[in-house]
């Protein structure tokens, strides 16, 4: 029998596989590591992974095809992704991308013939306050300029390994410009957890039997501490910071009360909404608070397993996150015997691979389970049947950080800030045309004008609240307030100065949604694509009132029939723009007659060339 020679190029894949359990949930993590090692996932690797994880090659290829940062073709030794948020564009990113391509002699999206490099666009990388930004071999490049691009091209042409590039290129700033009551001083690691456990009585932290303690009927102080903490969470009225604003206490209690052999705590750090970067800052400088919030949640709901699902754009944070987790294990704040109580809880990190939809909680869970990140049916909710069909709390990074502070300082303290229906403070990610972009913490209820004043952006003609899926507001609305009562938001605050053409904004956002639609349902898969084509048509000066009418019709269909939030909110900015910035559309409308988006005569070019014809009938 002829035995196939083991492929030496696949050794890294074998090493990676040895580090992972034979579990489908590991698939995406394996693929990411292989992609990092080989800059593609070739067929030979797919075969090995398929054998190891006992999953079909078709499934693996399906997963590779789904995520932007995985590729079945070789992307080159140096892979550059240029961040394509509107804020990057306003800082000149599109010109810089072309410039870099020229310096490297590559076509956008194609690997150079010698396999050295490729340059691509990618959705917002979360560096909007320090753009234009990019990623090179997974690491963030900030504040790019032409000079920097020249240097980068030189380094790539000289094959200088990325870890020998000047550290300055990769400097990421927090730009924390304003802190309020929540993010003033970071509490001692463990302080919130101890405070929570003490709520049940002083004996909590003395030697106890864990089994007895967690039995709800035991009335043990340890258990009482968890219940009291939940009450504080109710008192705080904390609402989720990831967008939907669901009350955290209800979610936690629901999870706790469903009987199940296991339950999970998932921290959503996908942060895919363009213009959002607060979770990055929290995971950089308030890391303990976030992990502590997760641990606390495990304590309250009775879970022993936490997962941080984080977007790969933040891969550079990996050593830091691992180090904080290790330190917390060493200080008995994670592990089998937390604070000596016998309470066991640990946190794993799972990386995303470039898919905005994976921030949507049920898509995130699909992704954790090693599948394409497609939203599930609306019911049952993840809190009832989430990861592995077990009750799963999914909360945003900022929600967990807030929960930690609530455990420490009490629900009443928290509820004392903000507005009636939006308690506490909120982080805002300010970017675009202003003097001081960065992170601003305000109590809910702050007006748009006040934020603009503080960041030096009062000149603005518009602000995009809560990202492309949010609301576009004009100067006339600057006294509106940021709170669930009025402008509800994940915190994104993109400022557009008086000379910006708001149609460019619309175009960037429509392209974003076309790229990020997961393709599960027709209204969104087809709708986002049609909308992008129609907007491009208008941009090309071929738009007519019929096309605008079409935009409105498709938008309505998507809002009412798309399966998940992505498709339902994707047309918001278009509808806003058509009402509020109609002028920027109208100036592009040169015709009232319908005009095709393409040139009919040019569409005959190929046939003319093939037949050699040029007679009158061969033209239109």
């Amino acid at each position, binding site marked *: 029998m002829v035995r196939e020679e083991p492929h030496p190029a696949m050794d890294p894949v074998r090493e990676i596989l040895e580090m992972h359990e034979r579990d489908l949930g590991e698939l995406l993590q394996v693929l990411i590591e292989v992609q990092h090692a080989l800059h593609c996932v070739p067929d030979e690797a797919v075969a090995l992974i398929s054998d190891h994880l006992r999953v079909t090659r078709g499934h693996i290829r399906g997963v590779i095809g789904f995520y932007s940062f995985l590729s079945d073709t070789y992307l080159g030794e140096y892979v550059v992704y240029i961040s394509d948020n509107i804020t990057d564009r306003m800082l000149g990113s599109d010109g810089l991308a072309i410039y870099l391509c020229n310096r490297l002699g590559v076509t956008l999206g194609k690997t150079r013939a010698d396999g050295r490099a490729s340059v691509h666009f990618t959705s917002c990388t979360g560096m909007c306050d320090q753009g234009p930004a990019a990623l090179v071999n997974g690491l963030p490049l900030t504040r790019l300029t032409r000079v920097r691009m020249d240097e980068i091209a030189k380094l790539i042409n000289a094959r200088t390994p990325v870890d020998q590039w000047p550290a300055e290129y990769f400097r990421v700033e927090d730009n924390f410009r304003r802190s309020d009551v929540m993010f003033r001083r970071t509490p001692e690691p463990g302080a919130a957890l101890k405070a929570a456990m003490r709520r049940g009585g002083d004996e909590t932290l003395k030697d106890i039997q864990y089994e007895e303690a967690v039995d709800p009927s035991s009335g043990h102080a340890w258990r009482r501490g968890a219940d009291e903490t939940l009450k504080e969470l109710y008192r705080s009225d904390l609402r989720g910071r990831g967008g939907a604003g669901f009350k955290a206490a209800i979610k936690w209690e629901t999870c706790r009360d469903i009987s199940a052999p296991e339950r999970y705590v998932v921290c959503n750090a996908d942060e895919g909404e363009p213009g959002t970067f607060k979770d990055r800052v929290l995971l950089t400088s308030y890391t303990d608070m976030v992990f502590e919030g997760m641990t606390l949640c495990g304590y309250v709901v009775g879970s022993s397993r936490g997962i941080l699902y984080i977007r790969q754009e933040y891969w550079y944070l990996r050593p830091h996150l691992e180090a904080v987790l290790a330190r917390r294990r060493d200080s008995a704040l994670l592990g089998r015997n937390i604070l000596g109580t016998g309470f066991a809880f640990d946190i794993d990190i799972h990386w995303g691979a470039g898919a905005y939809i994976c921030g949507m909680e049920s898509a995130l869970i699909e992704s954790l389970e090693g599948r394409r990140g497609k939203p599930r049916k609306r019911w049952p909710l993840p809190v009832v049947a989430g990861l592995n069909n077990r009750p799963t709390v999914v909360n945003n990074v900022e929600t967990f950080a807030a929960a930690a502070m609530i455990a420490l300082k009490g629900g009443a303290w928290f509820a004392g800030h903000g507005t009636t229906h939006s308690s506490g403070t909120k982080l805002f990610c300010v970017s675009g045309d202003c003097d001081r972009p960065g992170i601003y913490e305000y109590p809910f209820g702050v007006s748009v004008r006040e934020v603009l004043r503080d960041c030096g952006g009062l000149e603005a003609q518009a602000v995009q609240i809560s990202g492309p899926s949010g609301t576009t507001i004009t100067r006339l609305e600057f006294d509106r307030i940021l709170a669930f009562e009025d402008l509800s938001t994940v915190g994104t605050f993109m400022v557009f100065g008086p000379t910006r053409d708001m149609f460019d904004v619309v175009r960037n956002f429509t392209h974003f949604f076309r790229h990020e639609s997961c393709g599960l349902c027709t209204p969104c898969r087809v709708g986002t694509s049609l909308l992008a084509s129609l907007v491009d048509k208008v941009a090309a000066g071929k738009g007519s009132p*019929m096309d605008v009418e079409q935009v409105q019709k498709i938008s309505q269909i998507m809002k009412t029939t798309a399966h998940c939030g992505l498709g339902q909110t994707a047309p918001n900015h278009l509808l806003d723009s058509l009402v509020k910035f109609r002028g920027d559309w109208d100036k592009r409308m040169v015709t009232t007659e*319908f005009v*095709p*988006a*393409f040139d*009919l005569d040019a*569409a*005959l*070019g*190929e*046939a*003319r060339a*093939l*037949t*050699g*014809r040029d*007679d009158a*009938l*061969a033209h*239109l």
Partner: protein
Amino acid sequence: MARKRKIATCSLAGCFGCHMSLLDTDERLLELLELADFDRSPINDIKEIRGMVDIGLIEGGVCNVENVHLLHHFRDHCRVLVSMGECAITGGIPSMRNHHTLKACLEESYIRGVGVENAHIPDDPELPLLLNKVYPLHEVVQVDYHVPGCPPSADTLWHVLSALVTGRDPRLPTTLLRYD
């Protein structure tokens, strides 16, 4: 009595299945003829629309020069233009060639095809030149209504036509839009 309506129909890059479905309205056609006359249509073999008609029904997408001319002729002479069937609405089966270049398609048929003799790509000026892709009607002209189905059932076509000739809303009820 109200003025009799005029209807014109044609097939571009289609299979005539939609027209067959129109004929499937059977005796209802006689009812229709009480209210409307057929102008240019394969049904009566009239080749060109004379004057203006009220309703133009088109099956098939746009694949060549001749299709473009006929489509423009219809748009210019029909008050209401209706895309009839999948091919008209999306390009349908003929648009499967859009995944390949025109060159690849023609070479497959006329150069490398089984049993091809005197292999060359036909270039007779009599033949309508092909467009690089097959387009749905509404990407070439403004279309007022789209009637889905491959083909739309006789009931569906009847619903739309009888509504349009009598001035009712032609919107399809859910029962005619469910295919499972």
